[in-house]
């Protein structure tokens, strides 16, 4: 006793499937993706700029929370964006499968014969000297020469021909390519990774999880590190006097997992190194002074300190800012407390000196020139032993000073010490032995790249015939007429109808020539000569039927 309107399960599934397949659905989904993308470009996005998201949320408390709940700070990773994309791809596949099957069938079956030839938008009737069978044969040859697929009717002198299947092939290739693209993206995201590394000049880095300082972002199915090595021989930068960067180059040795040298290479912006599926990019740089700290003659710390630059305040160039680093020495302070030395590097001491002049403009430090380090020594419990950042909340500053390059200073008083004079003073010294640079590399692996590239090529290759090729069909029937035959020719173009009108006219002329000029069967030979001009009378009905073309147009595209 169910109401007649209610659909059965299979009917509803069929309805949903039909709806998904329709172009209208695909268009609406495309529109939704465009709208979501607009939101994603106007609001700060967490994967691209997390700090701007925090700032936005701080400035717009209510809206910030609301937008965050809705996933609008990570549009392209939100569940609803994934849902729309999935629906679009389901819609695409639902449309592509039957179309591909239809194309496959159409390619294997000969073109369909037509019953009513004069009903087509293009129609012509010509008289030719040749008999029906011969006329059809010559028409077949002429159409084949024009790369039509031709099928001859088995029961009578007639044929059907078509051309321009490249349009549908191209269109299908273009659309299937997006499935391939999606597969490549998912495969690459699932098995690839990306991370940042900082390597000091002279140091060697090895591709292993511990050496990414926690910056690694790996896919769920990422299957391990290569163990290849990278030794930074030298880093160089080049700036214009205006501070505009000109070049950043890292000269590196690339090493096999066993440490043997594979090759030397310069890595630049836009020129990554590619090794074992890893792509290594020039991503940043900084200073890493080599520091040695001694305590009563004993070396307690020695090595390069990787430094970060202070963020520049409004109106000051970044290159004018000093660099900061910290050396943490647990258990080396008075009575066994922890000790830490904060370092502030001025790669160009002239910029530091200039700032001593009140009201002076900060100067950009483009090259190293007699660098100096200001240091301050802190005592108290260390909250962590990481190589960056110092929490001085429970520490106190005990001394401060300045040390120049290739100099040694007393940690207690800061006075510069002469060579071999380390015994005097506080008993602790700091040496600024050498100023080195470090280079920051982005290391990434994306096994999906070949698939994505193949998809991109297929998209382009498929697009051209899909847009510029056109499907057209021609039908010809020959009926005996005296000694010769009357050829009735119909034509239909799915696209580019004005061009087809011309093509059809040329075709009719060519067929008239071919069939009229070919030797007619012997008894009809004399009669054929009587035809005016040895040709044919051409009557065309093309333009008058042209208005029907619109209703014939049924283009199905996803």
């Amino acid at each position: 006793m169910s109401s007649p309107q209610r659909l059965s399960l299979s009917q509803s599934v069929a309805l949903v499937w039909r709806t998904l397949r329709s172009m209208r659905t695909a268009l609406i989904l495309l529109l939704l993706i465009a709208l979501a993308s607009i939101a994603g470009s106007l609001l700060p996005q967490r994967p691209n700029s997390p700090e701007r998201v925090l700032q936005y949320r701080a400035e717009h408390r209510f809206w910030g929370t609301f937008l965050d709940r809705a996933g609008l700070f990570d549009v392209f990773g939100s569940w609803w964006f994934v849902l729309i994309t999935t629906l679009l791809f389901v819609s695409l596949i639902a449309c592509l499968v039957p179309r591909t099957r239809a194309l496959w069938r159409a390619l294997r079956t000969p073109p369909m014969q037509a019953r009513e030839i004069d009903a087509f938008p293009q129609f012509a009737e010509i008289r030719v000297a040749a008999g029906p069978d011969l006329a059809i044969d010559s028409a077949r040859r002429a159409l084949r020469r024009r790369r039509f697929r031709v099928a001859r009717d088995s029961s009578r002198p007639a044929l059907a021909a078509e051309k321009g299947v490249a349009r549908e092939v191209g269109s299908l290739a273009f659309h299937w390519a997006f499935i391939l693209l999606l597969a490549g993206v998912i495969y690459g995201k699932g098995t690839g990774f990306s991370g940042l590394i900082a390597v000091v000049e002279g140091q060697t880095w090895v591709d292993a999880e511990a050496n990414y300082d926690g910056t690694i972002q790996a896919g769920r199915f990422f299957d391990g590190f290569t163990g290849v090595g990278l030794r930074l021989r030298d880093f160089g930068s080049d700036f214009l006097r205006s501070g505009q960067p000109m070049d950043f180059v890292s000269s590196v040795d690339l090493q096999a997992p066993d440490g043997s040298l594979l090759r030397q290479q310069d890595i630049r912006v836009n020129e990554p190194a590619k090794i074992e599926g890893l792509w290594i990019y020039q991503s940043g740089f900084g200073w890493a002074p080599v520091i040695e700290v001694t305590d009563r003659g004993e070396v307690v710390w020695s090595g390069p300190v990787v430094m970060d630059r202070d963020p520049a305040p409004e109106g000051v160039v970044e290159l004018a800012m000093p660099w900061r680093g910290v050396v943490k020495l647990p258990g080396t302070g008075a009575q066994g407390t922890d000790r830490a030395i904060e370092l502030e590097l001025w790669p160009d001491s002239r910029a530091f000196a200039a700032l001593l002049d009140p009201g002076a403009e900060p100067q950009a430090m483009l090259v190293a020139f007699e660098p100096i380090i200001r240091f301050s020594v802190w005592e108290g419990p260390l909250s962590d032993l990481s190589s960056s950042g110092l929490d001085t909340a429970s520490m106190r500053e005990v001394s401060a000073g300045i040390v120049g390059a290739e100099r040694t200073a007393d940690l207690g008083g800061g006075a510069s010490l002469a060579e071999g004079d380390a015994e005097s003073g506080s008993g602790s010294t700091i040496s600024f032995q050498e100023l080195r640079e470090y280079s920051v590399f982005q290391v990434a692996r994306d096994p999906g790249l070949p698939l994505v590239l193949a998809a991109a090529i297929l998209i382009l290759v498929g697009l051209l015939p899909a847009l510029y090729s056109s499907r057209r069909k021609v039908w010809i029937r020959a009926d005996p007429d005296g000694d010769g035959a009357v050829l009735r020719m119909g034509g239909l173009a799915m696209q580019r109808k004005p061009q087809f009108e011309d093509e059809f006219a040329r075709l009719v002329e060519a067929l008239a020539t071919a069939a009229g000029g070919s030797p007619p069967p012997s008894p009809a030979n004399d009669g054929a000569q009587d035809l005016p001009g040895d040709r044919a009378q051409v009557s065309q009905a093309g333009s008058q039927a042209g208005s029907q073309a619109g209703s014939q147009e049924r283009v199905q595209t996803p």
Partner: protein
Amino acid sequence: MTDLQWARISNDAFNVALFAYIAAMVGYFVHLSFKRDAFWRVARAVAVIGVVANLASVVARGLAADRVPWGNMYEYSSMLALLVVVGALVVVEGVYKVRSLTGFALMFSVLTMAVAVSFLYVGPGPLVPALNSYWIKIHVQAAIWGSSLFALGGIATIAYLVVDRAERKKLEALGAQSPPPIMGGAIDLDAADDARAGAAPSDLVPDPAEDVQAVLARRRLVPSAAGLDRLAYRIIALAFPIWTFAVIAGAIWAQEAWGRYWGWDPKETWSFITWVVFAGYLHARATSGWKGRRAAVIALVGFASLLVTYYAVNLFIVGLHSYAK
């Protein structure tokens, strides 16, 4: 010659081009209103002078900076203006024999150049390392060619919507004049659409106030709505693969420079939006019920999206492409 001299030549040629385009634009509009071939010949000659000056400006700029002359928004705008005018003269006037759009194309170029010289000017200088790649030749060129054709397509679409509106009004007038429809004789808009493909209604109902010569001249000057629709489609169908290629080339460059081929940077996002909208346009034209005006509206949205992709993303939205100024 020194870099400074080349820079000065480039700036002078830019000004010559801008004023030539303004003069040619006025000439084309005069031609549209008075329908005299002489105006058209003069306007076209002035436009060609503008093209030559514009090209000289671009080349001199490259010589002054010792690199490709499309490294910032000022240079990109100059080249865009050049290609829009060349496209209007070669494709629209040359191939499709439509003269009535060139004035509007010139207007687009004049606005582009005026904005460039007023707000975006920077002196010739070297590229930052991020831009210093052979991909700048491929990706940026494809983007300029695609943009210029999309711009022409947008102009043709606007013209289509205007003419279509006028034709519909005339058709309504025609419907009112004809005897009241008997059963099943209502005017079928689709059939009317097809009828218009052949001849414009202005020819079907000659206005007795207008002389025949003027009607014929107008008809030759402004194509029918169906013709403009087809022209817009042709140009957009030409632009779309180029734009697709530009986006793909950009993705390959991003993989080379930033370690990922796609990261939803605002520029990437907006070029994708533009691509999606024009893809929607191409699909809409093949869908019954979406043809004609609805598809045209989608093309206009694509045109707007293109402008956002170029101007708003570079100037107002923070992202990796914000180096342009």
